[in-house]
């Protein structure tokens, strides 16, 4: 187990290293000059040169990378080019906000998706299944900006129940933020819901088709016991991995959703950074997203290993 963790952590480190190189080098392909960009078209040559010096832009590329990477590891993520404020506290605060939103969304779509998936599997090829499958496929396919705007049209503008705009104060706590979280959370959830429902359905169908479920039924066990103890215990195991893989999707969904609702999360910050060409912000934000994604996958693998006797106990 310890060795396994070590190897997985090693791989995550490698991933982050390569991802950082990719992100760093992509952002270096920028047409035009960063200093020029920051100072605008009418800046003087001298001012630009000074800024270049200040930002280390005259150094060779690999030195620039090493400086940046060393800074990132030690917590010095540089200053925003736009606001001239340190990037790190800003990113971490927004990360917290995104986590809040993601948390609410996960609480909605994971249980609901599992329930729908199991129902669809039990009613396989009959109407409930066809309905759930069609709806979940539609949900998976609908971009968040479409569902988000639709929800705003209905619940904010039409019915006036919930705020259309979620641009809360970035430092708000959960209770203050909650009313503003509902619509964006539902928006993000719909995609995840369809995804979890489909995966749970196929996982459950696989289990329902096994000999050991037939055996359990023919042991004369009550139907509820067969479902709860024999089917679900096996069918929900892969869902752990599915939920983790869905995190990547969730992160993408957050970028769009936060933009739709103006919610001050990491995704909104990244879009903002890109629109303003704020290089340090983009680099740090992207790295954090990659790290979160990698770690959640690791967590899922460990949980899966602990829940699955075949892996936990070995041969």
């Amino acid at each position: 187990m310890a060795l396994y963790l070590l190897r997985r952590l090693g791989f995550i480190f490698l991933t982050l290293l390569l991802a950082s190189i990719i992100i760093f080098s992509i952002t270096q392909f920028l047409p035009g000059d960063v200093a020029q960009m920051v100072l605008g078209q009418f800046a003087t040559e001298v001012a630009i040169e000074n800024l270049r010096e200040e930002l280390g832009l005259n150094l060779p590329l690999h030195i620039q990378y090493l400086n940046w990477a060393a800074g990132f590891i030690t917590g010095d993520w540089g200053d925003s080019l736009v606001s001239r404020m340190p990037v790190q506290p800003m990113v971490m605060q927004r990360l917290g906000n995104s986590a809040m939103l993601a948390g609410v969304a996960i609480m909605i779509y994971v249980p609901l998706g599992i329930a729908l998936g199991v129902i669809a599997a039990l009613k396989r090829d009959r109407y409930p299944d066809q309905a759930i499958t069609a709806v979940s496929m539609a949900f998976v396919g609908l971009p968040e900006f479409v569902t988000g705007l639709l929800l705003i049209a209905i619940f904010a503008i039409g019915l006036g129940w919930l705020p259309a705009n979620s641009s809360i104060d970035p430092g708000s706590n959960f209770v203050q933020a909650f009313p503003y979280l509902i619509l964006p959370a539902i928006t993000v959830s719909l995609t995840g819901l369809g995804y979890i429902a489909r995966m749970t359905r196929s996982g459950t169908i696989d289990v329902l088709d096994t000999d050991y479920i037939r055996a359990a039924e023919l042991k004369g066990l009550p139907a509820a016991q067969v479902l709860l103890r024999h089917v679900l215990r096996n069918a929900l195991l892969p869902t752990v991995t599915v939920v983790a893989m869905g995190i990547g999707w969730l992160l993408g969904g957050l970028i769009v959703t936060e933009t739709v609702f103006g919610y001050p999360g990491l995704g909104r910050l990244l879009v903002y950074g890109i629109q303003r060409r704020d290089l340090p912000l983009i680099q740090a934000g992207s790295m954090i997203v990659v790290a979160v994604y990698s770690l959640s996958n690791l967590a899922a693998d460990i949980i899966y290993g602990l829940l699955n006797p075949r892996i936990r106990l070995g041969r």
Partner: protein
Amino acid sequence: MAKDNRGNSKPSSPFSFLKKLRRYPATAIGFIIVFLFILIAIIGPSIAPYPYTEQKLSERLAPPSEEHIFGTDQYGRDIFSRILVGSRDVLLVAGSGTAMAVMLGLLLGLFSGYRGGLLDEIVMRLMDVILSIPPLLLAMVILFSLGPSRLNVIIVVGFLYIPMVARVVRSVVLDLKTRQFVEAARMRGEKSGYILFREIFPNVLPHLAVEASMRFSYAIFLVASLGFLGLGVQPPSPDWGLMVGEARTWFHQARWILLFPAGAIALLVVGVGFMSDGLRRMLLPGGVSDV
């Protein structure tokens, strides 16, 4: 050797295909939607009632009427015409991106899976790294440095989906490689090229078709999202995602300028999704659906 004389083979006429479709209404709907959109993309621009860039400030934000059946936008442009013309954009951009990803992913997956060893290990680790960055984020970052343009969006889509296609192809190749018909081919001294393209590739095709259709639906999703964020195709192009993004400001006054392009996107993505699911059922009857 190949003669078209298969004894009493199972009938695989287009008729039986239609029969299959009837059993899965969602799949049939999917195929119909995709077919209609392709039709619109081909003839749409020529039947559009107005040029898509024609601005009539006097008629801005006009609600749907006989003249403008989908209404007009903030510049007084005919939304119906823009959607018709935009369909070609969506299908072309997402389609070419998908095609690029499928081609490169196929080659990478085929060779990497077949050769195995260190090359395979390196290629697949690299794919894993790319996959560990959420696609939309990666697309944003790449477009940020390449600059937003139609061509760049195609390149981004193509690049982003290579790892996924390659992974699917590779896993099929790994499975096929150990099948005994491949081993029999090795035992009679077939060249790698023959084994790869004549023995293995035909059996990869059904998986590839399903994967490609799925990637296509994600590509439409991605292109629309990028357009919405203002990082994809730039104005005044009639890109649907872009239209939705621009419409947000006017949304409170004129709901139609948002609903029609958003509806078009939703309809197309869902249609392609249904079609892809149906392809999976028909071409890969063994497995249950799986995202």
